């Protein structure tokens, strides 16, 4: 048996629906159809009345989740694409994210964002917008990079009492596979050393973890030992694990698929520079997507996003200093 990243997401939701009567799923086409990506396949049939098609109303979708959460439910909202969550942005950042702080009443909602670039996705079906959610107080922002994390972190997302932005990478949906679902997992908030090494720390998250790992293999052939840190969660961000890694390697490259200004890479480097300055032997560097919309044509897209080759090239520059 083998299970994909996408199937893991479906399984986690099935699991949550089975174990917790407070859970329901609401989103466009998530019902009988099973969702644009089939992440809710058969769930409407298996859990009648608990997996519901919504109108094309992202603002009202999130607002309704907040109201249901106040009433003790644990709604999961599926956005058809992360990019469309922007029309529900207000309810997420101003309604859901402020509820606990203002009223002491927690807001346990999970908003699933199928995000990130794929071939031919173009400017509005490719965005990586974790940073704008992480900027606001009151949200937990998760970016699983593996099948196991997709499963366990989604389960945990539903279980915790706060609004979670669950960024699931469309590029990983089908081609990332695991043998089986995990029975235990690192808790949310802990980063993972995806590969050990002593020459350079590459911090990445979501799909970029795989580009980093591929680059690490390439560089291994050249004799370099690259440590890859998979952040898993970008808010909270596990600064300790990153700094501990930098303490070992003295060198830092941070890789993100999002736009450069104020992205995860800026936050990571700012923290390491402030809190682990003395550990750095050379200037920390970052590698991001280019500062333009995500292009449609694969030629452009491959140049727009960091690839293993680009990661390796950036790493070499740091290693040679």
């Amino acid at each position, binding site marked *: 048996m083998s299970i994909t990243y996408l199937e893991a997401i479906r399984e986690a939701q099935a699991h949550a629906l089975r174990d917790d009567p407070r859970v*329901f799923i609401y989103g466009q086409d998530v019902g009988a159809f099973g969702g644009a990506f089939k992440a809710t396949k058969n769930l409407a049939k298996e859990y009648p*009345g*608990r997996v519901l098609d*919504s*109108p094309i*109303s*992202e*603002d*009202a*979708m*999130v*607002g*309704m*989740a*907040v*109201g*249901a*959460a*106040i*009433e*003790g*439910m644990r*709604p999961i909202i599926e956005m058809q694409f992360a990019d469309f969550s922007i*029309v529900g942005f*207000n*309810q997420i950042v*101003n*309604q859901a*994210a*402020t*509820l*606990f*702080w*203002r*009223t*002491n*009443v*927690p807001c346990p909602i999970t908003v699933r964002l199928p995000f990130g670039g794929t071939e031919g996705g173009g400017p509005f079906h490719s965005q990586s917008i974790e940073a704008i959610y992480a900027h606001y*107080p*009151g*949200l*937990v922002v998760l970016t699983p990079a593996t099948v196991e994390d997709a499963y366990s972190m989604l389960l945990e997302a539903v279980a*915790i*009492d*706060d*609004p979670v932005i669950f960024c699931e990478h469309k590029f990983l949906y089908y081609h990332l596979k695991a043998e089986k679902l995990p029975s235990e997992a690192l808790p*949310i*908030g802990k980063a993972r050393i995806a590969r050990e090494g002593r020459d350079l720390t590459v911090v990445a998250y979501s799909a970029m973890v795989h580009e980093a790992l591929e680059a690490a293999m390439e560089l291994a052939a050249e004799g370099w030992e690259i440590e890859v840190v998979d952040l898993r969660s970008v*808010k*909270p*961000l596990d600064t300790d694990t990153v700094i501990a890694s930098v303490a070992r390697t003295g060198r830092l490259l941070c890789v993100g698929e999002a736009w450069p200004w104020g992205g995860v890479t800026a936050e990571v480097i700012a923290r390491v520079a402030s809190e682990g300055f003395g550990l750095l032997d050379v200037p920390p560097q970052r590698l991001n997507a280019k500062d333009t919309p995500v292009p449609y044509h694969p030629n452009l897209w491959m140049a727009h996003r960091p690839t293993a080759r680009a990661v390796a090239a950036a790493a070499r520059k740091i290693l040679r200093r």
Partner: protein
Amino acid sequence: MLQTVLDAKPAGETLTARDTTLAAYRFMLRARVLDDKFAALYRAGKIHGGVFLGRGQEALSAAVGISLKKTDVFAPLIRDAAGRLAFGETILDAVRTYLGSSQGPMRGRDGNVHRGKPLEGYFPMISHLGAMISVVNGALFARRMKGISGTVGATCLGDGATSTGAFHEALNQAAVEKLPLVMVLADNQYAYSTPTSRQFVCDDLADKAIGYGVESSSVDGTDLAACLKTVGNAVAKARAGEGPQLVVAKLLRLCGHGEHDADGDILSAKQSYIDPKLKNSPLGRDCLKVAEEFLLREKWTDAATLATWRSEIVIEIEEAVAQVRREPAPDPYDEKWLAISSAHLSEMHEE
């Protein structure tokens, strides 16, 4: 909630129109006196930020609050002091929020009209107009899922807020889900300074109901008895499972948009942006006076009683203000600066 006022009444006795109207009037009066106090505190520089009154809208607002049960859901807006009190809010909590007391429901974290107690079905507005409606939908939806029936959710909105996308999405959502939502629109002719001619073109906001496939009713917002009847009917229909109800009341804002907005106060401004014709039209009647006249005409009460009520309320409010003034202000050093409830997941940025 009517029940709260009439607790003294022997169980089993049915409520007469007289009881209800008197109870509603008293909430109106409490709200008016409370609002006046907030205005006075504002002028005295005792309130941080804005003050928003419901002057002229108390009949409608009280009718909403009084038509609901304790177990219902209510998401009021900026002009709903009366409805809030009628739904069960205490004067103390209102004052605490305006004065930022650490003892209030918002603990100084939020203020003025941004107050509520979500777990009691009393939802605290965020400022973004229209944003509360879908939250009420969610609560109603959840109750249905949990098998709780007979709940109604009411929410209030102004004419201007009907132009928001949030209003549209949420009213449509309520219609699709056939939720027991009562959406009360106070068409007070202006959104801040903007007249309705710059806000919508349909003849009457009630026309909007058609496109959502929901029922609507219109009412003279200056007439308490009419408001009680119309809002009461809408709540009853929603409770009976007849789906969302839109209630549109026509009236006039008898104060500035906020207390900072002197030009918007048709009653006292020398030159107001409010069309004086409106003031002199039936819309411009003061619902509180109209209600008093009605009560006296019906002989349901007398002038002396009205005066007593007012002075009792004044005292109650003064006492509340005095008490809140003695309560501790929030202390930043004691404050838990955590935006999420899962403390282990929160980030502390030490500075």
